[in-house]
């Protein structure tokens, strides 16, 4: 129980009892949601705007990715514009290890697929972990050569990776003659989650089962983040974010600390990607494009950079708008006789959110304490100052702040 009280303490709103109550209430609310959703949808006025359980799963998946991205962007202050690469890595891990894609072999381990089915079928529960680990490795591989770059350069490099990965996946149907990704057609179907004969996908309450799994994964993610925030590593991230040079001088190992943030952020992206691939039963190259990265970034900014609870709020809001909200609002507008389709301008709307937030409330809906201080007082050093190239391009802006 000690961890829960720490968790509660982290919310920082005075008495731990009260925050404990809030968190518990939210968790209970989240868990019983599928049971009350139908009653909610019958409510007058707001009933049409209540997301279905099915949509909630997708919202949670994207929120989980946003929380992962928040580890990189919020905690360590490294702008990552290619987070979609981790999502792709996770989804394709699920495709490789839990589908009939590698038809030349037949391997089955605790999965829901029938025995003897062609392809590799490992239990999706294990695949989630494997996907997380694999994506972590991808994150480290991307991070090692690039993390010594300055902030905006790093952003561009990650953007480059975010652009390359989808094309690689698309062209990956003959890597030296080997069909790695099934190219344009993607990998489908991907195994369902489940245990033995209890297969989520064929159960009548499939959406609920996936939903509770998603809630569990999100809680796990949140738990990890809460623990990380106050850990040695978490404090090292803040130090680097605020003043990299000073942090290095105080003995914080820059590369290792940054790489950890990348690896951990990637881990959650991978798990979420694999889970989502199983939920929708497929991984396609067309799913992974730059806008997804921006969409996730927008969630982080809306909620509050570095603020765990904020990012969850931002993620749920934007996830809702993406999957149902804008379409529902649009249909209301069209019922009202106006020919305007907000889904068409989805990214324009996100753009407006980003700009408005940055200009008027850069700390987000639920600001994180330290970030607010940083925004108000500025940071001593440009974040992510390039120490390996000391005295290079950025020297000029030292002391500007």
């Amino acid at each position, binding site marked *: 129980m000690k961890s829960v009280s720490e968790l509660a303490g982290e919310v920082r709103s005075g008495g731990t009892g009260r925050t404990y109550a809030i968190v518990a209430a939210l968790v*209970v609310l989240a868990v019983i949601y599928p049971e009350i959703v139908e009653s909610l949808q019958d409510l007058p006025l707001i009933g049409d705007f209540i997301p279905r359980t099915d*949509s909630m799963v997708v919202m949670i998946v994207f929120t989980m990715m946003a929380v992962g991205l928040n580890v990189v962007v919020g905690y360590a202050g490294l702008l990552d514009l290619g987070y979609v690469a981790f999502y792709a890595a996770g989804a394709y891990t699920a495709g490789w290890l839990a589908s009939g894609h590698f038809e030349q072999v037949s391997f089955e381990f605790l999965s829901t697929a029938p025995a003897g089915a062609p*392809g590799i079928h490992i239990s999706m529960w294990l695949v989630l972990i494997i996907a997380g680990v694999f994506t972590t490795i991808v994150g480290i591989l991307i991070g090692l050569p690039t993390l010594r770059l300055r902030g905006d350069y790093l952003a561009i490099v990650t953007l480059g990776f975010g652009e390359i990965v989808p094309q690689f996946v698309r062209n990956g149907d003959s890597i030296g003659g080997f069909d790695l990704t099934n190219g344009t057609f993607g990998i*489908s179907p991907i195994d369902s989650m489940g245990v033995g004969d209890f297969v989520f996908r064929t159960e*009548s309450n499939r959406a609920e089962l996936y939903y509770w799994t998603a809630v569990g994964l999100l809680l796990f993610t949140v738990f990890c983040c809460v623990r990380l925030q106050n850990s040695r590593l978490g404090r090292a991230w803040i130090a680097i974010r605020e003043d990299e040079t000073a942090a290095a001088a105080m003995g914080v190992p820059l590369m290792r600390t940054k790489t950890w943030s990348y690896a951990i952020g990637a881990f959650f992206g991978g798990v979420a990607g694999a889970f989502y691939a199983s939920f*929708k039963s497929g991984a396609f190259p*067309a*799913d992974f494009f730059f806008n997804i990265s921006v969409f996730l970034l927008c969630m982080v900014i809306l909620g509050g950079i570095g603020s765990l609870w904020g990012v969850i709020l931002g993620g749920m809001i934007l996830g809702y708008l993406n*999957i149902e909200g804008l*379409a529902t609002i649009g249909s209301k507008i069209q019922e009202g006789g106006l020919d305007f389709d907000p889904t068409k301008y989805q990214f324009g709307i996100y753009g407006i959110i980003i700009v408005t937030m940055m200009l008027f409330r850069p700390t987000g809906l639920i600001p994180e304490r330290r970030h607010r201080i940083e925004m108000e007082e500025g940071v001593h050093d440009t974040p992510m100052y390039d120490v390996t190239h000391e005295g290079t391009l950025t020297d000029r802006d030292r002391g500007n702040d």
Partner: protein
Amino acid sequence: MSLTLKSRGVYLIGLLVAALALVAAGCGGDDGGEAPEALPSSSCTAIEYEGDGNPDYIVASDLPLQGASRTQTLQMNEAIRKVLTDREFKAGDYNIGFQACDDATAQAGKWDSGKCSQNANAYAANDKVIGVIGTFNSGCAAIMIPVLNQAPDGGIAMMSPANTYPCLTVNLPGGCDATEPDKYYPTGERNYARVAPADDYQGAAVAQYMKELGVTKLYVLNDKEAYGLGVATTTRKAAEHLGIEIAGFEAWDPKAASYESLFRKIEGTGADAVFLGGLIDENGAQVIKDKVAVLGPNDGDVKLFAPDGFTTQQTIDDAGPASAGMYMSVAGVPVDEFSGVAKEFADSFEADYLNGARIDPYAIYAAQGAQIVLDAIENSDGTRTDVIAKMFETEVTDGLLGSFSFNENGDPQDASGAVVGFTIYIATDKLETSKALSPDPEVVKAAGAA
């Protein structure tokens, strides 16, 4: 300041929880009622029903209603509505409501795999959904078929008016993965049929026409999308079978600015024809312009062929004079050569639903698909299983697409008329019929195989 903010937050959350708990306690489970529960409004239109009483069942259409295909898919839905209206929303004894669902997101501008999965599960979960007309894109069908296949009560009948990926229904040796198509049907029972001829037919038709025009060396381009790559592959195989040399097979990047260097390379190979497997919306007009700029006009030394992704007036409008002389194919008989029931349908459809605009070839396929689904429901005992069975037993005689029945895979067989025919158009300032032909079964087989 911050303290007050926080306490306010606490009270708000507390209030919210209390309210929700009240709601949950207050109004639990009110089912019953006559009208079936509608599919979610975020994807689908409200139930459209104009008959007496309440609908017994729902038929849904699943098409990408946003982005590039929108003009076609809107017409397809209108065609389905016309079929339903003509039948007064009845299939025999059953009242049928209709919902048009969208599997595209604006974000992607085309079908989205998440949306396809979401829709499919919504159909499966709603026990009033008895038939699905769709999908438009084969990739979306690959996700949807297994979900509908495993739907409660024996699966949901799915009828596609537009899917052309061959491996959805049949394993072409070498052309499909070994696990296809079985992986799409986890229960082992089939629930999917289509009225659109698969890519291997189109590839064969195009290649046969190339041969006829004396093409000896062909360069095949594709847009790296499921549709474009599929039709490019079958065309290549059919052409090889007919003894046409393949000079190259490559993708064009729809996001690139120009394709001139690509055509320079093609020029170097000495190809006398180029095939564009893809869609006009994937920067196709620029591809056509650059082809003409480098390799000369399409009625010159190097001919230009394209599949039905290009067969629209938009191609001519966008590419301008560069499109002149290019050949474009489409399944079915030419729109201006419709006869019998198809002509009647097209005429009244154009007058009543399109304000006189031209019917899109796909609208006829959608209408035929709707008729088959409604007939199957009419002949069934009202269970999902029986609707599937009756769909497979369908025999269409002189229907909108000619005469045909389904084989055990769900593909049209014993067909005559539009369902196996192809029209090759040539571009002038509009699409002019160049030739109507039915591909040779031998060539079709070669187009699908390795």
